[in-house]
């Protein structure tokens, strides 16, 4: 069906359809006809041209007439609403500029429900948010109320082209391939394949210098015979008296601050930390070495053997140490074995004693590597 030149026909199809001569008003008799159908009565449309170009409405589609299609006042009201949204957006942008100039970045404001929050963030965010949102809201309101809401239909063609096209395309591919000679010259083909297969290797090889070869760093920490045990944070050397029965203290080796500065890394911090706990000697059911405690003070690695979180939650009553990451639980009264959660290996124990001045010291490094699984461990 081709578009007709009858103007009433076109506007009848034009519940907001494209009509170049349209002034936005609708013919009075057409309008009367549409009014009879209004009240959101569905109108089943015949396949009639809606616009002069492009896709047309599908036959038999149901369509609901909108107030704005038939009542110019409703349409003008919608137009006003959209313009107000756009206008408010512009105002919000101006508001943003003012807030940017007036409010310092670190200003605070107390709000009910939201609590203390950054005044600058609040003002900038609300103004910018509204400025952006209102453009979107206006555009969608415009589309819903004032643009045609008649659904159009377009043909879909199967993905697979017809035989003719296929034969033509395939023929060209085959001919082109034959012309290259790649099928007839196996030597060419094979050497090209070999060359291409090798080419990615440099890209892989060059990744080698991303890092050094492991040289047993994961098996060593700073701990050594006679090295003092410092309280974490204060870095004061600890005496046995500083740790009452039932207590847990986080500790690091003496010199860790200096090592951190020298190397510029936190690597030692990720391995060496220990927890010290003290229990009545008769409560210790087992430990990893004879006499590794000092008067009931036990030192265990603080690094979880699961995937390496620092462990910090100690339950004095059960003598269990709980990892906050995945809740592996270790029994410090029983050699630090895991009793719950995903960790499979015990926490390495550090043998400790006191030096001549009465400060707690290590008796050497850990006997086994700390932290998560290492493939090369025996």
């Amino acid at each position, binding site marked *: 069906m081709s578009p007709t030149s009858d103007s009433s026909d076109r506007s009848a199809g034009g519940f907001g359809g494209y009509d170049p001569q349209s002034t936005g008003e609708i013919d009075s008799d057409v309008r009367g006809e549409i009014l009879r159908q209004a009240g959101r009565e569905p109108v089943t449309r015949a396949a009639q041209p809606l616009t002069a170009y492009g896709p047309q409405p599908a036959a038999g589609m149901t369509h609901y007439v909108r107030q704005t299609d038939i009542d110019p006042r409703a349409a003008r009201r919608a137009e006003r609403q959209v313009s107000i949204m756009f206008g408010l957006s512009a105002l919000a942008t101006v508001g943003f500029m003012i807030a940017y100039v007036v409010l310092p970045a670190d200003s605070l404001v107390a709000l009910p429900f939201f609590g203390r929050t950054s005044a600058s963030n609040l003002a900038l965010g609300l103004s910018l948010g509204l400025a952006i949102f209102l453009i979107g809201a206006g555009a969608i309101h415009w589309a819903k109320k004032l643009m045609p809401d008649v659904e159009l239909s377009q043909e879909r063609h199967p993905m697979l082209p017809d035989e003719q096209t296929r034969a033509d395309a395939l023929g060209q591919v085959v001919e082109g391939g034959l012309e290259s000679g790649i099928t007839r010259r196996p030597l060419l083909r094979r050497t090209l394949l070999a060359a291409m297969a090798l080419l990615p290797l440099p890209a892989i090889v060059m990744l080698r210098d*991303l890092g050094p070869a492991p040289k047993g760093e994961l098996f060593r920490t700073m701990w050594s015979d006679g090295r003092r045990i410092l309280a974490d944070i204060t870095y004061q050397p600890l005496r046995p008296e500083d740790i009452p029965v039932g207590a847990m203290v986080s500790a690091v080796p003496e010199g860790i601050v200096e090592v951190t500065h020298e190397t510029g890394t936190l690597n030692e911090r990720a391995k060496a930390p220990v927890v010290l706990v003290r229990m009545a000697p008769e409560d210790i059911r087992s430990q990893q070495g004879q006499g590794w405690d000092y008067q009931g003070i036990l030192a265990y690695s603080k690094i979880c053997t699961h995937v390496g979180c620092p462990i910090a939650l100690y339950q004095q009553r059960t003598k269990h140490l709980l990892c906050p990451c995945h809740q592996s639980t270790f029994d410090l009264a029983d050699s630090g074995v895991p009793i719950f959660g995903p960790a499979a*290996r015990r926490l390495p124990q550090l043998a400790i004693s006191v030096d001549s001045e009465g400060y707690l010291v290590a008796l050497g490094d850990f006997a086994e590597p700390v932290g998560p699984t290492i493939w090369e461990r025996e």
Partner: protein
Amino acid sequence: MTATITPPAGPVQRGAEATYDYLDQRLGLSALLKTNVRKIFPDHWSFMLGEIALYSFIVVLLTGTFLTFFYKPSVTEIIYDGSYLPLRGIPMSEAYASTLNISFDIRGGLLMRQIHHWAALFFVAAISVHMFRVFFTGAFRKPREFNWLIGVSLLVLALLAGFAGYSLPDDLLSGTGLRIAAGIMQSIPVVGTWLVFLAFEGEFPGTAFIPRLYTIHVLLVPGLILALITAHLILVFYQKHTQYPGKGRTNTNVVGYPLLPVYVAKAGGFFFIVFGVLTLISALVTINPIWLYGPYMPDQVTAGSQPDWYIGFLEGALRMMPAWELLIFGYPISLNVLVPALILPGLIFTLIALYPFIEAWVTGDRREHHLLDRPRNAATRTALGVMGLTFYVVLFINGGNDVIATTFDLSINSITWAMRILLILGPWAAFVVTKRICLGLQRRDRDLLLHGRETGRILRLPSGEFVEVHEPVSEERAAILMARQDVRPLPLPPATDADGVRTPGLWHRRVRSRLSQWWYRDDIPAVTPAELAAAQSHIRHELAAAESMGVLPHEPELSEALSRH
């Protein structure tokens, strides 16, 4: 043709025409526009999910670019002296200090950080829900399998981008996340230690990783995402969007609104809505307040710390896994880490990627599908989907088992055990229940078509009997309900052909036929057009008969009749 456009020519008009002409001569614009300006896009709320993903990604790019101007990807130690008083004088990495700077000293910096983070969360959420929409409606079927594969890659990349970004500020939480990642890497058999030493330029944490992660986060992953999104959208455009069944909608047409003006206004407007909403949320709701966590220290941790939501399922899997570690020839195989952190996600994503091909193989369906399935009509697929979703949700919930434990005062031990059992049994229960619900809905649809809908009007027949008047369902409704077709499962292959020769590939074809029988087994027979016609004329007949014979009962009788009903 009368509808030639001859508006009054003003300077703007002439300028526009000249520009168009200029471009047309050089780009052949008209040929391109002719077929695309009024391209039809079907409309449905669920089609906006992909759009939300797209727009969140654009917002992420815009705000992220701003952040790069101020963020310093370096772990060099400095002493903080910015505006945030509680951390003044504390040694920290430049990365952390610059993030504090963005939050407290750059005007609008906190806003950009928060929009960036919220948009990233929305991005992953929208992709996930979009994927479920595509799954449950069968939009992945031929010819859209490639777009499904691109989609799965996008999902994985989005998770990667999120994790990398979360790790950049070098605060206590992000550092702990990296520590876990390094531990997971280290547990990989044979190459684990080497991988860590290459990635971190030595031991964890070293100084190289944050700058490297930065490149991955701002260049590599977004570049890939951008390229894949482009391909994704080109395919959507080229293959045309699917549509839900309905009156006038067939497998060979697209019904909806034209690109210009409606779709441009709606989709373009929707970008501003998404951006605006993200900005408003960021104005009001703090996300990732890194200043509260303090700088990263490998021997410190806060209890109850939670990763971003999309890592939750991995976290839950890690927490749930029993402490299994094997020793093989003296070498440790850490199943407790490998299974939940690498094998499980690997399997999940492989299965998701292969799903369209598995389903096509089982059903033997080789047709093109442009009409979407209503989920009930593909009962087995829907049940499988809910099964997978249940598995995911159990893992996700277990990711917060410590929060649940403290909130409800339960023991972590019993929660973990309950979740382990639920992880095994829950999905099966979900499958059975979902399938039943789908079949129930299929039955109801059939009844509606064959017996009409209840009008709520009661008539009394001369015999004194009360009947409720039924009416055929509307044409629109019928078009939707009739969209399902009966599919015959693949037949069992004969063991031998007519000449007694053994059928080739017998075993393979048998398995497939069994699976196909299982797939369609319980489906309620679809209503055929002939059945529908007969049923409708029957209903109309009854209606007419009842109306001619029956009378509307008086009020008291009516209420009695209704109460008996």
